[in-house]
C-alpha cells in the first residue's frame, strides 16, 4: 500500500492532469513524495541519507523541468545532468563515506558517483522517447526495489517500488491515451537519479552486492532494444517493459545468490 498503491494512484492523477502540459513526467516526483510522506512524514530532520535521496529525487524533477523549459536539447543537458547526478551521489552519501578509511571512501564514493552519472546519462538519452523512458523507469524501480529487499532493506525496497509506480503511471497514461506524452528531463532526471541513489543506498547501508547494483545499468540499456514502432502504444509499452523486466531480473538473481554465497 505505502510503496505501491498510494504512490501509483497519486502519480496517475498527476500524470493525467499534467499530460496536456507535457508534464506527465512529474508523476515520478509525485510517487516519491507520496511514499516519503507515508514512511517519513516528509520531515527533513535529521537530514539522513534516505531523506537526502528523496530530497534529491524531488529536486531533480524541478531541475529537469527547468532544463526542459530553459535549455534546448544540447550537450549541456547530456553532459551536465550526469555530472550533477554524480555530485549529488557524493553529497547524499558523504556522511557515511566520511566514516570510512580514505581508500575505501574513494573507492566507494567514486563507484557510486560513476554509477549515478551513468544512470542519468543513459536515461537522458531516452528523454525524447517516452515509451522507452517509461519502461526503463518501471524496470529500474522494480529492479532496485526488489534487489534492495533481497539486500536487507525493505524501506529502500518500498522507495524503489514507488519509483516503479510513478513510472508505471506515466506509461499507463500513454497506453490508455494511445499517444505518447513528453518525457523530458522532468521525468528522466528524477527517475534515473532517485533510482541510482536508492540502489547505491541499498549497497552502502544494507547488504546489496556491488555487482548486483552495477547490473541495474542493464535496465535502461534494455530499453534501447528494437520495438514494434508501427504497433499501438500499449503494445510498444508492453514489449519494452518486458525487455526492462528481464534486465531487472539480473540483479535480483545476483542479489539472491550473493545472499546465499556470503552466508550468515
Amino acid at each position: 500500500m505505502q510503496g505501491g498503491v498510494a504512490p501509483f494512484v497519486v502519480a496517475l492523477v498527476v500524470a493525467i492532469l499534467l499530460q496536456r502540459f507535457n508534464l506527465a513526467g512529474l508523476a515520478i516526483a509525485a510517487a516519491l513524495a507520496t511514499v516519503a510522506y507515508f514512511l517519513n512524514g516528509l520531515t527533513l530532520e535529521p537530514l539522513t541519507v534516505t531523506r537526502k535521496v528523496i530530497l534529491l529525487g524531488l529536486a531533480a524533477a524541478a531541475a529537469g523541468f527547468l532544463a526542459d523549459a530553459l535549455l534546448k536539447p544540447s550537450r549541456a543537458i547530456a553532459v551536465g545532468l550526469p555530472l550533477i547526478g554524480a555530485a549529488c551521489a557524493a553529497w547524499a552519501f558523504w556522511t557515511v563515506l566520511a566514516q570510512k578509511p580514505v581508500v575505501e571512501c574513494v573507492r566507494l564514493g567514486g563507484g557510486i558517483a560513476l554509477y549515478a552519472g551513468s544512470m542519468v546519462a543513459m536515461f537522458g538519452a531516452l528523454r525524447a522517447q517516452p515509451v522507452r523512458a517509461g519502461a526503463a523507469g518501471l524496470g529500474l524501480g522494480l529492479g532496485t526495489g526488489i534487489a534492495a529487499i533481497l539486500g536487507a532493506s525493505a524501506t529502500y525496497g518500498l522507495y524503489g517500488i514507488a519509483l516503479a509506480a510513478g513510472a508505471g503511471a506515466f506509461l499507463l497514461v500513454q497506453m490508455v491515451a494511445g499517444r505518447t506524452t513528453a518525457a523530458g528531463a522532468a521525468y528522466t532526471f528524477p527517475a534515473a537519479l532517485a533510482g541510482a541513489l536508492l540502489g547505491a543506498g541499498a549497497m552502502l547501508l544494507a547488504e546489496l552486492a556491488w555487482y548486483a547494483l552495477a547490473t541495474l545499468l542493464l535496465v535502461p540499456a534494455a530499453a534501447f532494444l528494437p520495438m514494434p514502432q508501427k504497433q499501438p502504444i500499449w503494445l510498444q509499452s508492453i514489449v519494452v517493459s518486458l525487455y526492462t523486466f528481464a534486465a531487472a531480473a539480473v540483479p535480483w538473481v545476483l542479489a539472491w545468490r550473493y545472499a546465499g554465497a556470503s552466508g550468515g
Partner: protein
Amino acid sequence: MPKASTFAAGAAAILLPLSAVAAPESFTIDSFHSFPHFTVGHLGMSQLYGRFDKTSGKMTVDTAAKTGSVDIAIEAASVDTGDSERAGRPRTRDEHLRSPDFFNAQEFPRLTYKGKTARWTGDSPAEVVGELTLLGVTKPVTLKVEHWKCGPDPRTQGKRYMCGANATGSLKRSDFGMKFAIPGVGDEIHLLIQMEAIRD
C-alpha cells in the same frame, strides 16, 4: 607551636581520607560484562529479546554528594537477537536490524546515552535521567536503577574496586524515527541494562 602543628597534622590525617572518599570517583565500563538488552513485541504474540554486544563508556560516582553520571556508547552493528544464520533466507534478522529499516548502522554506527543520577536511595542511585541519541535523534530517557553494588573486585584480591548495576527503562522507537514495521514489530521498547565498571 608544636601543639598547633601536631593538631594540624592530626586534623589532616583525619580529613584527607574523608575528602578522598567524598570526591567523585571515575569508572570505566567493563565492556565484557556490560550489555544493554531490549525487548520488543513481535506480531503481538511475544516479546523478542535482543542485546548489543559492544558497549563502552565512563561513569562517575560521588556517594557522599549523592551525584553521579554515566556516558555510554553502544555499537549499533553489534545488535544481536540470536538470528545470525541465513539458513536459505536472503538475510538474517540481525542483518535486517542493522539496515536502514531499523538501526541504520552504517550511517549511525553508535547509540549514545548521557545521564545523571536524579534520585538516590541511601547510598545507591535509584534513578538516572539522561538523553539517548539514536539515529541522529536525541530524546530523554529515564532509567530506574534496580540493583547497585560497589566493592572490591574479588578476582583481584581486592586490589581493584568496581561497581555493578542493573537498570530498566523504556522508549518508543518511533520517537527516534525508527518507524518500520510498526505495529507488527512493536513501537514500545523495554530496556534492561546490565553494567559493571572498574574504578580508574
